[in-house]
């Protein structure tokens, strides 16, 4: 598959008006940093980041129908591998994303193999994914080479070096934006590919998919492996953005859940859902944190999460398919189209 030809095809087949809107949207985001302050840059970074990992998670759940509740595992593995290569061996994260992806893929493959080989599905599979994230948390907590529970730190250097992901919020704004766009294009291409169609078939009815010649096990494995790799890249970027890694935060189940909110709220299995969800959820959460801090005079931990919880319940109650399908109907886009 030639990536450029695929891209050209995607552009070719999209309706003109949608394409113009999309181009305008990207253009606005490209020039936005001119007017954004440090705080807003960091908010946008989070939006782009959550849109990216949401897109990756959506491959498993939205496309292939496999519920993973342990995606923090791949963020953490990616983050630790990237940070270790940089701090211990001075290898640039631009190169370290390769081993980061490989490690995440290896773990994803083990989870997938354990789950899919034995026909473990639904909540059982979800539990398996949580279990692995927990095991990783405990493992890293006790692994002194990476700092254990006391955390692992990436030194802040004064000299900006974009290739090594050293720089200010502006750098991370653009890196995350690029990540979001690439993830979107990748998912759009996958959605149209043979593999993408196999995933949809597995999601809808695995038995019927099998009867049509689809190797269900392989399709599921491909989903978990690709999703893990994408998430690991986002993990490297996040580690260098934060400059620190604590097992108790990095592999926390709360993190895993936070990652899946955007695609669910935006619309499972859609391409715009994860992005839309991130654009709705992250600013609301951040505003809430700021608001409570202003009213209470201090930060109250957990406020934004209570809000996320309520948002989840309301959304799943009223529009279980997410906001994007609803918006699409309002905009008059036909059902079969993205």
């Amino acid at each position, binding site marked *: 598959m030639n990536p450029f030809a695929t891209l050209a095809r995607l552009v070719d087949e999209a309706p003109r008006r949608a394409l113009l809107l999309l181009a305008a949207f990207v253009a606005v985001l490209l020039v936005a940093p001119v007017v954004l302050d440090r705080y807003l840059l960091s908010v946008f970074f989070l939006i782009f980041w959550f849109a990216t990992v949401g897109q990756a998670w959506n491959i498993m759940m939205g496309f292939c129908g496999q519920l993973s509740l342990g995606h923090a595992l791949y963020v953490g593995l990616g983050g630790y591998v990237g940070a270790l290569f940089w701090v211990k061996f001075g290898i640039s994260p631009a190169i370290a994303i390769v081993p980061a992806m490989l490690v995440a893929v290896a773990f994803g493959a083990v989870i997938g193999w354990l789950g899919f080989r034995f026909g473990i599905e639904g909540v059982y599979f979800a539990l398996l994914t949580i279990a692995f994230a927990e095991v990783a948390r405990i493992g890293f907590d006790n692994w002194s080479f990476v700092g254990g529970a006391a955390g692992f730190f990436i030194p802040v250097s004064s000299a900006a070096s974009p290739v090594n992901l050293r720089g200010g919020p502006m750098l991370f704004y653009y890196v995350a934006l690029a990540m979001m766009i690439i993830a979107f294009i990748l998912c759009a291409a996958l959605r*149209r*590919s*043979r593999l993408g*169609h*196999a995933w*949809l*078939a597995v999601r*809808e*009815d695995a*038995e*019927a*998919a*099998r*009867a*049509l*010649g*689809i*190797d*269900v096990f392989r399709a599921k494995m491909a989903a978990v492996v690709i999703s893990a790799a994408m998430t690991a890249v986002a993990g490297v970027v996040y580690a260098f953005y934060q400059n620190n890694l604590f097992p108790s935060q990095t592999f926390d189940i709360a993190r895993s859940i936070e990652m899946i909110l955007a695609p669910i709220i935006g619309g499972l*299995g859609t391409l715009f859902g994860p992005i839309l969800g991130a654009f709705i959820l992250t600013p609301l959460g951040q505003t809430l944190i700021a608001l409570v801090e202003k009213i209470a005079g201090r930060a109250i931990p957990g406020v934004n999460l209570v809000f996320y919880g309520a948002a989840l319940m309301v959304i799943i109650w009223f529009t279980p398919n997410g906001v994007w399908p609803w918006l699409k109907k309002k905009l008059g886009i*036909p*059902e*079969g189209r993205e």
Partner: protein
Amino acid sequence: MTPLLDVQGVTKRFRGLTAVDNVSLSVEEGEIFAVIGPNGAGKTTLFNIIAGAMTPDTGSVTFAGASAVGVQPHELCRRGLARTFQIVRPFPELTVMENATIGAMMRAPDMDAARARAGEVLRQLDLWDRREAKAKSLTLPDRKRLECARALATGPRLLLLDEVMAGLRPTEVDRIVAILREINRSGVTILLIEHVMRATMALAGRIHVLHHGATIAEGTPEEVTRHPKVLESYLGAEAL
């Protein structure tokens, strides 16, 4: 010539109940072969054994010269055996076109070819006008034809149809009979498992009759309808 599908001495028991009892049949390349029998005759169990969804307790199933026992359904599909489900299982949230395209991916070199093949099949089964509709919005006759379309799109040598005519009105039955004839003429062997008598008689070259899991007759429609055991056990009320 060796038959395309050869079933020899297949038996399957469920907790003491013998669902299929020492059944043998063979389907030649190019024919339309039907298995009929009253409810509970073991038709669906036999079908599932041929389709690779169940393994027989004893006996052999050979498809295109190789054993098909214990072979995964997707592998059987690759070898050229496609099936439908008695209770149709379209991919509900996908469009009719996507449903057919997924079937067509089996032998298409790329997605464009798959879509082209899907389009062909949809036209053949009178579903082209509904191609943009989600499968869940289709009526039952449309869904039954989509089930066939999807299986046909995989480019099979043998099409296994599990009661595709059940629950359809006579006009719909006639429509699907005409379509199946057309499909057969294009070189696809068909094995029907049916309950609807009239259509089966009109369509099949040879008919195999099951009763309580065992074979009671096999032959052309004329031979079968004249067979005393068949008249007695199954056709009794309907034919006389």
